[in-house]
């Protein structure tokens, strides 16, 4: 048994180095692979063990691609069908031109009724002068789902689409427009046009909720 310190130190240091290098090389390259296995990792996909990722869900209202236009001088209807997670529908007035002359003719009043699903119908009456205030919408509240567990974002969105709480399906929204013009204040003088015209264009846009999924951040639990 040697009794010099280096006779013990040298093998201890060499063997510890070898074990250290083996431990590092044997594990370090696998760390990226298994990173998403950790509950504290913020990943968009589950780790190799397939353990589902918890996502926070934020709902964004988006316009459906199809929309209806009700352009009318008298009465018209518009209809739009939305497939997806129902958010409701909105109406905007893009154009409104009334040729009525002040003092000679009354401005035309436009009334629209927007309905769809089991939402309370919305009715608004306006004239071209206040068309900017005529926009309106009927809205479903955002689904009361703020968390989903899934392997990845795509699977999470699929899971949400099948959740009974999110009202996924197809709903038709209807816009009914009527135009009336009250009688004028005085008989039209000879030589002036008696009939004023109106052109109004209303856009009907169906809306759907789109889920935005972000990995749930974990805070220290201590």
């Amino acid at each position, binding site marked *: 048994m040697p009794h010099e310190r280096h006779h013990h130190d040298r093998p201890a240091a060499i063997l510890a180095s070898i074990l250290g290098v083996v431990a590092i090389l044997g594990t370090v390259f696998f760390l990226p692979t298994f990173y998403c296995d950790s509950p504290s990792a913020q990943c968009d996909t589950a780790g190799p063990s397939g353990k589902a990722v918890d996502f926070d869900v934020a709902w964004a209202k988006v316009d459906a691609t199809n929309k209806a236009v009700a352009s009318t001088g008298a009465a018209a209807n518009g209809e739009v069908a939305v497939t997806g997670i129902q958010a409701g529908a909105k109406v905007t007035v893009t154009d409104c031109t009334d040729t009525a002359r002040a003092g000679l003719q009354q401005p035309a009043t436009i009334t629209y009724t927007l309905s769809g699903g089991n939402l309370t119908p919305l009715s608004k009456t306006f004239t071209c002068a206040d068309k900017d205030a005529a926009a309106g919408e009927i809205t479903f509240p955002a689904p009361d789902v703020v968390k989903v567990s899934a392997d990845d974002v795509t699977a999470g969105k699929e899971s949400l689409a099948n959740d009974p709480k999110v009202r996924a399906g197809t709903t038709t929204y209807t816009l009914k427009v009527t135009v009336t013009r009250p009688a004028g204040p005085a008989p039209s003088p000879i030589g002036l046009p008696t009939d004023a015209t109106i052109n109004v264009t209303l856009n009907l846009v169906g809306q759907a909720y789109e889920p935005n999924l972000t990995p749930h951040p974990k805070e220290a639990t*201590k």
Partner: protein
Amino acid sequence: MRDFAGRALTRWGFRKNIDVLLEQASSKHGLAKTLTGANLVMLGVAGIIGGGIFVLIGSGIVQAGVMVVPAFLVAASICAVAGFAYAELASSIPASGSAYAYIYTAMGELPGWMVAWALVLEYAVGAVSVAVACRNNLLAVVTQFGHLFNPADAVRTPQLPNGVQYFANPENPFWYGMTHSPLESAVSTNSAGIDVNLHGFINLPSILIVLIVTAILVKGTKESARFTAVLVTLKVAILLFAIGVAFSLFNAHNLADPLPCYNTGTGVPCSAAGFDPSAPTYDVRNFLPAVAAVFAAGAIMFFAYIGFDSVSTTAEETKNPKKDLPVGILGSLIISTVLYILAALALVGASHWSMFVGNSAAAQLAVGEPFGFVFEQNHALEVGGFSIGALLVRLGALIGTTSVLLVLILGGVRVFFNMSRDGLLPAWMSRISKRGNPSVTTWFYGAFTLVLAGLLTLGAAVELVNIGTLFAFMMVIIATWLFRIRRPDVERPFTMPMWSVLTRKGKPILPLFPILGIIGTLVLIVSLDKFTLLASITWAGVGLLVYALYGVRHSKEAAERFPAPTTPAARITVIGEPDE
């Protein structure tokens, strides 16, 4: 080759001489002895009860329903085994290195080094993550007051369980930048409905909190103990108040069907209308699933108990360590267990478990802030729409995390100090200031925590705290058993029960109590995720390299066993001295 390996193993197994250790500990040149048993209980409670208890119970209820109460007992019993082992070793080896010193003495230098290396990670990662949690709690408190003046500064988004993205106002990104690290980012929707990406620049609140805590620790251990006592008194008072309010809302009907069964997505209980048997269901109403659920909840709750071990790092600063250390370790464990069980019972009594399950906003709020949810649901502690209850809970979490941060930095510094004193780390780390504490190491450790907390997020590395703790627990239990066999002669003012079924010459050969503790900690270790297990092996590999390159050559234990050959000049001096 066998000789080579044999010499390496012999060298790794050099055990610290307990008499030298006791001499070091009692030396007047060592750390100032200022702490009493009561101080240690306070330090233990400070380390155990953080902000997590205000959150973890919700996750436990989702797993086990009303049976979250026995789940706390399961977690406490595993901790109790480790607690008994720490108490026995702390009373017989009152050195400030905690698990490191015990294992160095009972098992050898390399096992001691490996545990110390794991503890360094536990304390360092723990301190950084708790500093970030402190920031979150501080911003939550400030945000709640911000509502009174400028509602726009607290933008409600569903990104966090309680629905508040702190300081994430898209109209004023400055405050997000100054309160978050460069690796943090968030998406917030502005008033025009446009998503704005917010990026962190520096996490100033964490930096300030770490700076304050480090300055208090540098001032002195006694001063730190006083500060800790104030924090512990406040947080325990807040916790007791929250428990009291929750108990006032107690309804026995909430305990009627104690084991959960529900559709996992919608959270509709199996006994309620609207339950869909074809949808994914979580059902633990039968015996075996119920036991599994209680243990799963116990595993979650276990981490609410860790922290008591840091009491043993202050052994050298304790006036009567042999008596006071067991009091500090076990006393703080008992107090925390009682508080946790009361808190769990109050919550499941005030609100049915079905309120905590499912993917709805309300359920997520209940899980994220169980006390806040119960208060809000019952409009308790609400004045003019301002929730005093939520504020109290957030203040409790802020105070709790601050005290944990203090204990983690204190413990980490003591481990560095001891390793350095043994020659395994550079000597400047064991320098003692005039105030009798390792102020240089404290500033070094504080600066390290401050930089990491200010500039980084730990991500998956946070979980390494758990494996570091569990590894230390397991090794301390083994060391207690081995030390009984190897050094039965050492005075043990406190002893761990052994329940040995086979004893030889008074030595426990097959002790059930420690074996159950070892199995319990092993089960928890293997239940950790693969990334954490692999990363801990990588960290151990780094530790082995540092040990090989520095520790082996500078070890004072080895130097004592192999004194350096004297120089010719020295020999002449010796020869010239008269014989005694």
